[in-house]
């Protein structure tokens, strides 16, 4: 299911050394997509060849005249379809935005373009990023490149599958409750959820604004670091964007974890965790020990309250954010009934899928008079306590090690039956969003079915460099993907 391509930073070096052209690279990427995406289904929209080549040539010119010298110059990148791209359809995988063509680009996209990256298309996702399998997409079934009968995870399933299948070396995803880290784990790729406020949310179609972050997906840690470095930075258009001076993430790709203190939250190894994953995590802990880090388990309190708090807060914010889809300024409008309000209701009811409606309903309920205190404020208070429990943990530990998800990728068609059960899977990821922390998902093994296992490294706020250093050191030492089950890598 995969193509042999080289990683992004290596690719751009070849381009800068004139060993290959951007045009050649663009054509190869298109060919990869044409060949592989028939079965993987990662892309919702691909740039037409003529347009892509024109962009490739423009980038080439800037490389040749010395304007573009960075590690992303000429590198093809896929963008999740909830991130606005000027003049390129952006749907959130929802019928309600099926025809939406943004008149502007997200800041992260502008930064990518300024770095000379070549945006090739838009990737499939769970509708409005609500889901864990990419099965709530209104348009397309994305499959896991490691086994086409399994889901790629979600909600950034298209981005992670595209990178895993090596259709593209890099992709942007977004992570509200695990939507970069979990599909990265399922697809055997590397993904980072940055500290809240590190990457501008301007142009990211909002799901839950206090939790959403855009982040990189790549084949390895250094590519992830390079991509994050390109998109991080303060943006006056996002009032929650931070003024950070420490975004030289590529420089953190150093092999050294000596003396690092890593904690494994006990609760994350308990019931419900696949045995193969537990073993892989413990083996990763041993690898870190062998590299000179100190690793121990410790009790992290309140982990069982993260999911209820998360779903209340995320649904509340979603119900408010998605109020803008009313069939007036953009998107789907139902064939008119009687009057304005009837048109709103029909457009929304026909335009949104079941999972989106479920969360809008829950969110509207918990924000309604009489229930606001008992549910929404209670969740916000719980959020403060969860944040505090992490703050305490980081007084002792430099990093936390955890699974990215309790299972490997489930089969297609089984997850949507029971929404609550699907939500419960997010136990290892949502508290990171509630606390605004950075985390990286890195491949750490394979289960007995040959499906990838991902581990998560969680850092204190602003500790991306520590995360990247540890993940890079682990990746270089363990070389997990080299031990891929036969039949996958060519």
């Amino acid at each position: 299911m995969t193509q042999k391509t080289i990683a992004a930073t290596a690719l751009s070096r070849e381009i800068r050394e004139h060993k290959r052209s951007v045009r050649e690279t663009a054509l190869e990427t298109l060919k990869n997509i044409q060949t592989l995406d028939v079965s993987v289904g990662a892309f919702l929209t691909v740039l037409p060849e003529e347009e892509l080549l024109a962009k490739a040539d423009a980038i080439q010119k800037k490389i040749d005249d010395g304007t573009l010298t960075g590690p992303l110059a000429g590198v093809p990148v896929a963008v999740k379809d909830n991130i606005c791209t000027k003049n390129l359809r952006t749907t959130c995988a929802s019928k309600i935005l099926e025809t939406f063509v943004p008149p502007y680009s997200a800041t992260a996209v502008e930064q990518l373009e300024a770095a000379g990256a070549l945006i090739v298309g838009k990737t499939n996702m769970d509708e409005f990023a609500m889901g864990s399998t990419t099965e709530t997409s209104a348009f397309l079934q994305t499959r896991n490149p490691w086994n086409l009968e399994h889901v790629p995870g979600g909600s950034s399933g298209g981005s992670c599958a595209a990178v895993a299948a090596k259709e593209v070396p890099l992709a942007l995803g977004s992570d509200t409750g695990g939507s970069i880290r979990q599909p990265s784990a399922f697809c055997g790729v590397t993904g980072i959820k940055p500290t809240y406020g590190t990457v501008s949310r301007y142009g990211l179609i909002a799901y839950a604004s206090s939790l959403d972050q855009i982040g990189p997906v790549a084949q390895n840690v250094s590519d992830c670091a390079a991509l994050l470095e390109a998109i991080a930075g303060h943006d006056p258009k996002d009032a929650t964007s931070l003024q950070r001076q420490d975004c030289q993430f590529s420089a953190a790709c150093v092999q050294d974890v000596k003396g690092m203190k890593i904690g494994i939250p006990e609760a994350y190894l308990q019931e419900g965790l696949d045995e193969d994953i537990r073993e892989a995590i413990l083996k990763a802990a041993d690898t870190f020990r062998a590299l000179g880090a100190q690793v121990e388990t410790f009790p992290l309190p309140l982990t069982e309250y993260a999911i209820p708090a998360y779903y209340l807060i995320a649904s509340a914010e979603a119900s408010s954010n998605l109020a803008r889809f009313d069939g007036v300024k953009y998107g789907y409008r139902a064939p008119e009934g009687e009057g304005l309000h009837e048109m709103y209701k029909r457009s929304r009811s026909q335009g949104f899928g079941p999972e989106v409606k479920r969360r809008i309903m829950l969110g509207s309920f918990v924000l309604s008079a009489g229930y606001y205190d008992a549910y929404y404020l209670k969740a916000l208070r719980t959020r403060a306590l969860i944040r505090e429990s992490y703050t305490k943990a980081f007084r002792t530990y430099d990093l936390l090690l955890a699974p990215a998800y309790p299972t490997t990728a489930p089969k297609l068609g089984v997850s949507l039956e029971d929404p609550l059960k699907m939500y419960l899977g997010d136990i290892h990821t949502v508290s990171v969003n509630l606390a605004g922390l950075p985390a990286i998902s890195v491949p750490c093994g394979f289960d007995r079915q040959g499906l990838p296992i991902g581990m998560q490294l969680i850092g204190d706020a602003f500790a991306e460099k520590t995360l990247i250093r540890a993940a890079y050191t682990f990746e270089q030492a363990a070389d997990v993907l080299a031990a891929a089950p036969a039949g996958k890598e060519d």
Partner: protein
Amino acid sequence: MAETITLETIDYVSILAKLKLTPEETEQARGDMQKLLDYVEKLNELDTDGVEPMTHLFPYGNVFREDTVTNQEARTEMLANAPKTKDGQYLVPKTIE
């Protein structure tokens, strides 16, 4: 026990949510919401008295900027996304009888 969700509650919430649910969807929504609320009831085990609700992760304060226009005129592109327009404006169904 969590709040009991009746079909009337769902009807009321669907007005707030601006959704028109079929009878089957209403019944489904009632069951789903009941199940979720029973589950989130778990939060009541936690003593949160005196804990400030966390609305922001970092102490931002107010963020101000000059109110200057930085984007270009894009009326045509904006209107191109609208389902219905008339005379360069958004067109909606009749609102006042």
